[in-house]
Structures are given as C-alpha cells and as structure tokens.
C-alpha cells in the first residue's frame, strides 16, 4: 500500500483513500454508522484488514455453516487457531490447513516459507508441539516459462523453513494444470500433539492481565498483505505488491516453538494468539472479542525494526514470527526469564480492560479507540449471488465413440507414468527433512503419511487431496470425491479417519458463477463428511484466485487425519513379495470423463467426473480396514489418477529401494482404455500371500464388497492381458525410470 504511506495521519478520509483500502462506499458508511463518527486513517486501516475477505470470511461465512463440525471426540471445532480432536491416552491432535497462494505467486520462496511458518504458529498457539507438515501445491502448465521458477522457489521455500524449524515435511500433493498459470496454489498443513487437558485458546482472561509481545521485532513488511494482496484478483499492478510479501525467519520460529511450549506449562498464561494476517491488530481484536473484554496498548513499547514507523505501520505490519501472550499480573519476570533463555524479544505492551474497546496510544496520545464488536462482527455478511456457469454445458459430455480405443496400452502407460501429475515426487521430497523427530513411519510417496505417537501404541495417518478437474466439471461431486479419496488413502494406511480440515481455493466471489462453484463444492463436501461421519474442525477460504478474469479451477483441498490404534499394523502401497496375489477391491465402470488419460493422450479435460457411490465407498473402506487390522494383506493402494494400470505399476516400485514385476490377467467387457486408465472411484489394489485368497474372498462377501483376483507379483516385466489378449508388456525397470526421473528432469532444466 505505497500510497497510504504518503497520506498524513491527520488527513481527511476521501473516497479515494477508502477505495485504496479495499473498502466499498457501503462498507465505509457502515463504519461511520457503527462508530457514530468518521474513523481516522489508522482506524480505517484496521477496518480495511479486519473486514477484508481474507480476515472476515464475509462472502463464505453463510455457506460454511453447512459443514458438520462436531463428533464426540472433537475438543475444538472451527473458530480457533486450529481444530483439536481427542485420540485417547490423554492426547489430542491439533491440525489445520491454510493457503498462502498470492504471496507465493509474487515471491515463491518467501511466500511458501511464510505459509509454513504461519500454519505452524497456528498449531503451537493451541499448546501443541508441531510434529508434521504437509502441503498441497498447484502450478501452471509445464510449458509456461514461469512454472519451473515457481516450482523451484516454492519447494525451496518450504524446505528451508520446515527443515530449519525442525518439523518434518512428511508428504503432500502437487498438480500441474494451465488453469493455475496466473495463480498458483500453496496450501500448507500442520499437525501437532497436545495433552487433551492443556489446550490453549486465544482469549484474554480477566481485566488487569498483561499483554506480552514475543518474537521478532515489527518492521514495515507485509503491510496490507491480507487485505490488498489476498483479497483481490491479480492484475498489472501485482508485481508492485511484492513488498506486501513477508519475509520468514525459521530460526526465530524454532525458538518461538520451544519458548512457547515452555510457557504453556504455567497456569498464569491466560491466552495466546499468533500475529498472522493483519498482525498486531487482528490478534488484539480477536483475543478481546473471544473474552468479551477490551485491550489497551501503547505502541511505543512495541519492539521495532526501524525508526520512523507510525501507528498505522505498527498496527498493520505482518512481520513474521511474532506472538501475543496474555499473562496474569505478577508473572512478568518469570515469562521474561524463559523468553530471555531462548534469546527472544519480549515486552509488556498493554493490559486487558473491562471496556470492550481496543484503545491504542502512540506518542502520548490515543490514536485508536474502536469498539471490539464493531470491528470483529461488523463486517457485512454478504449473500453473494450465485449462477450456474454456462461452460458446464460445453464440458458436460464426452462421446467415447469419438475416441479411438487402443489394442496396446504401452504408450499410454508410459506417458501417464512420466507425466508430472502422476510421476514420483521424489525430487521434491528429497529436499524436505521428512524424518526429524523420529516419528515418520511411512515416508512420503505412499497413499498417506504415517507418524507414530511416542509413549503410545498409536499412529496418526494424514492424506491431502483434491482433483480440481473433477471439481471444475462438477464442483459438488468433485468435492465429495476429494473427501472420499482422502479417507480412502488414510484407510489404505491402516487408519480410521477422525477429522478433516479444508482449504477452499476459488476465484473471484463477486462473480455469481464462482459463488455457485463455491456453494456446490461446500455442499458436496458437507454431504460427504456427514455421510462418512467426519467432522470439519478447521479450515481456510482463499478467494480471488484469478488473474485478469481467468479463475483457477475450483480447488477445495481437504486433509483427512486418521488414527491407527496399533503402530505395528501400518500398511503401505508397495508390493512386498514375489508370488503374492494381486486383487482389486471395488469394480470398474465405463467412465473416462475428467481423467488424466484423456488429458495426456487427447488434451481434453471434459466429461462427467467419476460417479461416487457413497455406500459402496463405505463398504470398500471398511473391508480394506478390516483386512489390515487382521494382518491379512501385504499392501493396499488407492486407485486414483491414471486408474488401475498406474496404481498397480506404482505398487511395483514404491517399496523402499525394491522393484517388483507384475502380471495382470483381466477379464472385462469394458473398453481397454476405461478398464486400464479410467478413474472409477472406490477401488483399492491389494496384495497378499496366495494361501489367504479364500479367506479374503469370504470376508469380501461378508462385507458385500466387490472383490476380484487380477494377477500376481513377480518377474521383470509389467504385463497385462485383457480377455487373454496381451495389451501391455514393458520392462518394469524402464517404467520405473520414467516414473522416478520425470519431475526432477523437468525441474532441473535451466532456461
């Protein structure tokens, strides 16, 4: 917000200044009504960030109410820094996913790094020690010049921050599509562990409590990052907003984690809040709001990075690695000693007052005096118009008869395995420290990441998912599939899903077509969560993901967390032994719409996405879960992008350093392309010793789950016959090389 700096603090608020702050004339009138006076410039700045889409959820709030948010085990649902679910043994998991899309497009390294930092702070402010990071990334077309730069920058940013902070990055997903050319997505997830009776919440406690500022000094970075960067479309002026991107310091974050967790042991800590989007302003208002109190602060006491900062800058700065604590009076020295031990800045900058207002002094005079509820609750809850987009009619159908089926699938298989959406993400994961803290039981690259929980027999499984092409073709069904697939992944690792967090990435909500996509996706997600009994405990909405009018595909990313009761019964997707039987749980339908196969072979992103039969999904998941609990199978892998053939190939080469061949003998009346590469939902590939085949088949009948033996592990080739006719025969080593090296080869090219 370059212009605002030139405006003198005492200047009259003109319509132009209001517009520069991203506020509409109606919103300004409402501010005047709520205050019974005109705000000064600093106060206008506060409204600007607090009423921004990013902070106020004004477009999305009405829809989000549809999501189920409770279960007997939910200790904290949406509305706090993170959701918390009890997992027994006196332990709970705190988790959340959040976007950092716009900053990462402008400045990929710092944008992604600070996204990781922000989500970690959300977790440890709940009193939880972060034990795992994941991420969901979307980049533009591979041919687009900027894609390689963004990919390298984002991965480097995530690696540098997470590795240094000592929290392992254990998995995630990466997809490329031209719809993200002008607006990449960087969604960061973090999970932490907390004693279920020591959960911290962001309140102020009683009057007289002291406001303690902790962490990095406040600088001029990130001013208006949330309001003007994250709450508007990209256009020609975007490059000029680079200074609104914050700069991360993971070392300070690491110290903050240790110091905060030490402070949380004391009962005199009344509350804590990260200074994230909208910095000091939002933490002060939100904490006061939750406690029904007010806050008085003196900005002269805030540790500053540079001279000459005015109240406006200090209040709106989004400098990273800062926290606001509220402590009971009389314990200032104890807190200072702990923070000094960790070498962190700390200062008492104010106190809690009874009057429900935020009153801020600077240079000996009061520069802000705003009622808490006017700022926090005052934003209009918008009922944005919705309208079914016309493009849906054009993309709804694809006539399979127009597309030639193949008699040999070798070329398609090779192309699919080498396409970066399917290929191994090893180049990325190798840059992340995924093992620090000694909990990672399943390394990145399997269906779900799995971490043991020390001092218990349990483990936690996490999967992040969203197929945005499905969501583009049918947002309702696509969002439901995202939930089902994430659950299926978690089940394939041996876990029972317990909760979900979402990051809803969409275009400009002022367009009725975008709001329609949003509404449909939230409904699809809500219905699926209700059906599977999964509460949504936290989340984030990211709107305005578009450039010059081109929106991204709707991308309602979900992260599902599951619990494994016995950490010795963790399942992975790779085949384990030659001679094992391969079987398919579920059955394949004549579906090809929205598949990676259509995109790669015919450059077509149309058709009806796969149908999700929720009841069948449930049967398949419970059957697979039971097979793992009874220790009957050696591997389980969800069939997703690339279908059956790709799933089996992945199982051939994803068990540590080992590689197995496989022979599939399929019988079917379907077209070869749909049989091998169709993406029918509710399917899982399993393998097991031959002698268990009968027992497993009998169990399948008891669970009413479809089950068929399809082949055998072993040999040096990947061979597929359909109705006794060979359609694929490739050396497994050749396929593995294509799959393993393609993304790294792309990323390493110098342009």
């Amino acid at each position, binding site marked *: 917000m370059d212009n605002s700096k030139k405006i003198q603090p005492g200047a009259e608020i003109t319509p132009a200044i209001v517009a520069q702050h991203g506020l509409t004339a109606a919103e300004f009138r409402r501010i005047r009504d709520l205050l019974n006076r005109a705000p000064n410039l600093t106060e206008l700045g506060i409204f600007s960030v607090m009423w921004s889409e990013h902070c106020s959820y004004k477009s999305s709030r009405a829809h989000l109410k549809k999501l189920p948010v409770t279960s007997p085990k939910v200790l904290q649902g949406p509305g706090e820094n993170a959701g918390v679910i009890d997992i027994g043994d006196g332990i709970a998991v705190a988790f959340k996913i959040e976007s950092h899309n716009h900053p990462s497009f402008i400045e990929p390294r710092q944008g992604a790094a600070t996204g990781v930092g922000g989500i970690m702070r959300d977790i440890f402010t709940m009193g939880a020690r972060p034990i795992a990071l994941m991420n969901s990334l979307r980049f533009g077309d591979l041919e687009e010049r900027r894609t390689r730069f963004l990919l390298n920058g984002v991965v*480097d940013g995530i*690696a*540098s921050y997470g*590795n*240094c*902070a*000592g929290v392992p990055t254990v998995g995630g997903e990466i997809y490329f599509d031209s719809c993200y050319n002008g607006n990449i997505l960087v969604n960061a997830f973090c999970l932490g562990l907390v004693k279920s009776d020591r959960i911290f919440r962001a309140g102020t406690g009683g009057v007289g409590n002291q406001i303690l500022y902790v962490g990095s000094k406040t600088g001029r970075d990130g001013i208006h990052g949330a309001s003007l960067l994250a709450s508007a479309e990209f256009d020609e002026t975007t490059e000029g907003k680079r200074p609104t991107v914050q700069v991360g*310091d*993971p*070392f*300070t974050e*690491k*110290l903050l984690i240790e110091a905060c967790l030490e402070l949380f042991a004391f009962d005199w800590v009344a509350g804590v809040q990260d200074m994230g989007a909208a910095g000091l302003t939002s933490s002060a208002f939100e904490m006061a709001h939750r406690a029904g109190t007010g806050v008085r602060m003196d900005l002269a006491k805030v540790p500053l990075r540079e001279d000459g900062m005015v109240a406006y800058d200090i209040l709106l700065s989004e400098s990273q690695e800062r926290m606001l604590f509220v402590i009971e009076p009389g314990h200032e020295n104890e807190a200072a000693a702990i923070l000094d*031990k*960790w*070498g962190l800045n700390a200062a008492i900058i104010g106190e809690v007052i009874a009057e429900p207002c935020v009153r801020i002094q600077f240079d000996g005079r009061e520069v802000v005096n705003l009622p808490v509820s006017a700022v926090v609750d005052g934003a209009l809850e918008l009922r944005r118009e919705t309208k079914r987009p016309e493009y849906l009619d054009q993309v709804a159908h694809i006539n399979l008869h127009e597309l030639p089926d193949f008699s040999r699938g070798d070329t398609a298989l090779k192309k699919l395995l080498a396409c970066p959406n399917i290929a191994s993400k090893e180049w990325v*994961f*190798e*840059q*992340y*420290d*995924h*093992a*620090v*803290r*000694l909990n990672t*039981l399943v390394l990145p690259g399997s269906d779900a990441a799995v971490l*043991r929980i*020390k001092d218990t027999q349990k483990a936690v499984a996490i999967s992040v998912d969203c197929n945005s092409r499905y969501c583009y073709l049918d947002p309702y069904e696509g969002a439901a599939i995202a939930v089902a697939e994430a659950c299926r992944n978690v089940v394939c690792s041996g876990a029972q899903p317990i909760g979900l967090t979402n990051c809803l990435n969409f275009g400009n909500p002022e367009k009725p077509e975008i709001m329609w996509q949003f509404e449909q996706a939230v409904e699809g997600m809500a219905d699926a969560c209700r059906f599977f009994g999964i509460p949504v405990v936290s989340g984030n909405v990211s709107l305005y993901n578009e450039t010059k009018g081109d929106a991204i595909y709707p991308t309602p990313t979900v992260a599902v967390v599951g619990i494994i009761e016995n*950490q010795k019964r963790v399942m992975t997707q790779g085949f384990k032994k030659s001679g094992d039987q391969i079987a398919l749980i579920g059955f394949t339908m004549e579906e090809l719409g929205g598949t990676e196969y259509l995109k790669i072979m015919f450059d077509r992103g149309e058709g009806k996405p796969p149908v999700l039969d929720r009841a069948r999904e449930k049967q398949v998941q419970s059957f697979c879960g039971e097979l793992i609990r009874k220790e009957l199978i050696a591997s389980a892998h969800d069939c997703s992008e690339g279908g059956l053939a790709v799933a089996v190939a992945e199982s051939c080469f994803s068990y540590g*350093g080992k590689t197995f061949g496989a022979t599939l003998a399929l019988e079917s009346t379907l077209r070869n392309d749909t049989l091998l590469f169709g993406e029918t939902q509710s399917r899982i590939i399993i393998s097991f010793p031959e002698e268990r085949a009968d027992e497993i088949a009998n169990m399948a009948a008891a669970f009413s789950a479809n089950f068929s033996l399809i082949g055998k592990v072993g040999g040096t080739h990947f061979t597929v016959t359909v109705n006794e006719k060979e359609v694929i025969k490739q050396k497994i080593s050749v396929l593995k090389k294509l799959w393993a090296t393609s993304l790294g080869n792309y990323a390493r090219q110098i342009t």
Partner: protein
Amino acid sequence: MKCGVVVFPGSNCDHDCYHILHHVLNQETHWLWHKEEADLGSFDLVILPGGFSYGDYLRAGAIARFSPVMNSIIHFAENGGTVLGICNGFQILLECGLLPGVLMQNQSGKFICKNVFVRVENSDTVFTRDGGEKNVLEIPIAHHQGSYYIDPRSLRRLESNGQIVFRYCDDGGNISAESNPNGSVGAVAGITNAQKNVMGMMPHPERCADPLWSRTDGQIIFRSLIANSRRRG
C-alpha cells in the same frame, strides 16, 4: 555410559539423540545447554546433534563454535573425552578446529534427505568397533552443507592415519560418483581427529537406531560407544 547432548538454539536432532540414548538404549543422558560452561569430566560421551544452530546464519556451525559450552567441549576432547558430532554437530567440530577440513554446499545446491550407504573404513575406533563383519551401513542423510573438502595432501594424511571412518558407497560397498550424494572429496562421510576420540559424520545414526523401523544400522555406533565405556569401566 553417561552421555551429554548439547542443545544450541536451533538444534533439531537433540531430542532424537536423547530418545535413542535414553529410551532405546537405556543410557544415563543429560542435556548440555549452550550458554553454560560445565565440567564434563564425569561424562563418557558428548554429542553435538544435528539441526540449524543459530539458524546456520553466516555459515553452518560458524556461530555455534563461540558458545560457552564449546570451551568445555574442547577442554573435554583435549583430555581424551569422546565427542560425536552429527551433521550440524560435524559442521561445528570443523568450525572450532577439533576436526580438519570444511563442509560446503551439496553439489546439487539442494537439501538432500534420503537413505544412503556408507562403508566402514576404520572398524578399529571407539565409534565402530561393535560392527562385527558388517562393513556397509544404511544410514539417512539430511543436510544442505555436507560436501566435505580438504586439500589432497591432508586427505592422504587422513587416509594413512585411519582417520576416515565412513565413505559413501552403494549397497554393495562400491564407491562411485553415483553413490556420492553431495560431492564430498574422497566420498568422505565421517572422520576422526588424529587421537580418534572425536568423530564427525554427516549421516544420522540416531535416525536408524529405533527398532520400530526395520533398519537399525545406526545402533552399531551407539553400541560401540557403550561397549567402549564399559571396557574403560
């Protein structure tokens, strides 16, 4: 065995080393805080763990060497005390002069986290004696600045003195450019000082020493140290 694990601001693998020594191997283990000088005379082993001490700002290990605790550790090492520096700990040992050479950025310019194989070049040290016949270990690495360098003459001296303890290799023990993950000269993964009581290594033995995982080659190093302290009794 009485062990000390040093905690610098930014140490990340301190808890992991503590976990293996104390919870897995049942050894008496203490934290050593970076701001404090301490008499380490009663300790059998001091570990400088991995991580990003002081954020690795300036250069990995360059600031940590000035910590008060380092004076105690140098004194301890000069009096024959056993010191093991892992990853960032190795970098600190080089910076403070207890070990020769430097660690530079990986050849790829990227952080690398994966399992690698190392060949035991000297099985007659307090760190490796318990390895038996096994001379190829599978141990994870996780670092950005792990490319070891020392001038050719000094490298030859390290070799002839038996100071090179581990070299990167493939699963069959063969050394080649492909099996060298970071471009280290002579594929060096771990070295000792001339007296062989101080060792620095880039791979993380504490990451493969918990029996919950199938690979536990890292235990060889810790068990060697335990056996040694018993012998000294």
